[in-house]
């Protein structure tokens, strides 16, 4: 099993830093970066893969711990290719744990599902009532060998818990070419952006993010408040990778700006 563990802590000067880190192959992280127009002292970490994607029988786990009053933004350097698999599948797990007024964003680029790929993706977010987490989850089909040779299956589990492990929201789906693609194959990708926050700010955030996703003519999207007042979710279908990434980006910028009050700079990749 491959593991990446990142633990963010705020120091006495108000700067968030990586207090603990561990990365085993194929994970690699860049040094922590700090950008203008971010919340004060926000630590930015780019995750890279030394192997060029996800391969058969791999088990990849990323653990993010956002400690008291820390600000962190984690992203991938590029999209992640899920390669073709002859028999088995692969497992990718992301665990995000935010406590005591922590603010963390896990904005990964989309998965690109190559023909014959089979992946189970688990995303578990644990957050207390004072903390905020934004998590992106997106996939895009790749027609590498023509129209009829497609991915096998993508099983996704997105689960939101309290700090004590009580389930608040759960999105489980099993996507296959048969149940995902329409006859005209107009939409070949799907994006989800989930904001976890229990401090009653989501009502206010819903309107701007809804406006973005519903006014984009290239995609088909909507936004809604999650059960148990634990946050909001934006979901959309897109016809290509460019529309998918742009919509994800615009929704993330809107959420950040609504919560923090400053429009963030677009991350260079």
């Amino acid at each position, binding site marked *: 099993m491959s593991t990446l563990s990142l633990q963010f802590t705020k120091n006495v000067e108000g700067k968030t830093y990586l207090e603990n880190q561990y990365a085993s192959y194929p994970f690699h992280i860049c040094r922590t970066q700090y950008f203008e127009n971010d919340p004060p002292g926000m630590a930015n970490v780019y995750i890279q893969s030394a192997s060029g994607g996800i391969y058969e029988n791999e088990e990849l786990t990323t653990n993010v711990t956002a400690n008291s009053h820390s600000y962190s933004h984690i992203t991938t350097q590029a999209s992640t290719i899920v390669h073709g698999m002859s028999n088995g599948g692969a497992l990718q797990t992301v665990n995000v744990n935010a406590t005591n007024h922590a603010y963390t964003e896990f904005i990964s680029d989309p998965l690109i599902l190559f023909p014959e790929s089979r992946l189970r993706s688990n995303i578990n977010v644990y957050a207390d009532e004072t903390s905020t987490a934004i998590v992106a989850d997106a996939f895009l089909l790749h027609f590498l060998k023509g129209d009829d040779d497609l991915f096998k299956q993508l099983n996704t589990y997105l689960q939101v818990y309290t700090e004590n492990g009580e*389930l*608040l*929201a*759960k*999105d*489980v*789906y*099993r*996507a296959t070419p048969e*149940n*995902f693609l329409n006859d005209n194959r107009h939409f070949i990708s*799907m994006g989800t952006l989930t904001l976890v926050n229990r401090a009653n700010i989501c009502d206010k955030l819903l309107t701007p993010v*809804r406006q973005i996703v*519903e006014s984009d003519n290239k995609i*088909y*999207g*909507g*936004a*809604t*408040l*999650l*059960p*148990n007042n634990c946050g909001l*979710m934006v*979901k*959309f*279908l897109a016809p290509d990778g460019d529309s998918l990434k742009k919509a994800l980006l615009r929704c993330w910028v809107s959420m950040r700006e609504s919560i923090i009050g400053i429009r963030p700079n677009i991350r260079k990749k």
Partner: protein
Amino acid sequence: MNKQEHILALLQHGDSFFPSGAVSFSWGLEMLKQDDFVSSKHDVESFLTNQLAERWAPFDRVVLAHTFDQSDAIDDVIKIDRLVECMTLPTELREGSKRLGAALCSTYAKLGVAKAEQYQQLIFDDAALGHLSVTQALIWKAIGLDKNSVLTLSAYNFCVAIFGAALRLGLVGHIDCQNSLTKVRTLISDYIALPVTDIENIHAFTPNADIASMRHENTGTRLFAN
């Protein structure tokens, strides 16, 4: 209940004449029509078969079966109810499911079904949520239906609700609905015969309908509650 009475009970509780409240819900169809994703009889059938395959069979059917089996252990039923709450993400689908579940409890409580009255009280007390598939299984078991009949009735009522909405939206005619209902019989029978998974493994994948329901929250003019 003898076989003849069983058939009569199914006819009574599956009839659109029965006051279930389902007539106010389109489960995303209204918005899909407005967004030009559904415009013909063929589209309505595709929508329905997709809902049956990707929502009813892997999610509602399993909830119904587990609730039926655990109907005497009310704490376990409430756990299933809470899981349905956590897993129904679009607000209008979640609220619609609870409104219909509460309406079902209310109607059957008035008909003197003790289980309906008991669960209605739990909903009033905020001890239970009352999602539709949970209340259907509880109540229909209490009136003497077997598990297969409960699953059949749920699937049939869902189809009638969709076709009823499609009819009011001007997408299909009465004869189209009857033809389509005949067509989906085999499909429903196949799904009912599937093994029932663990309750923790329920899942659904209907992104178009989910997104449509999210967008429906934001529409000014509407015929349906979702």
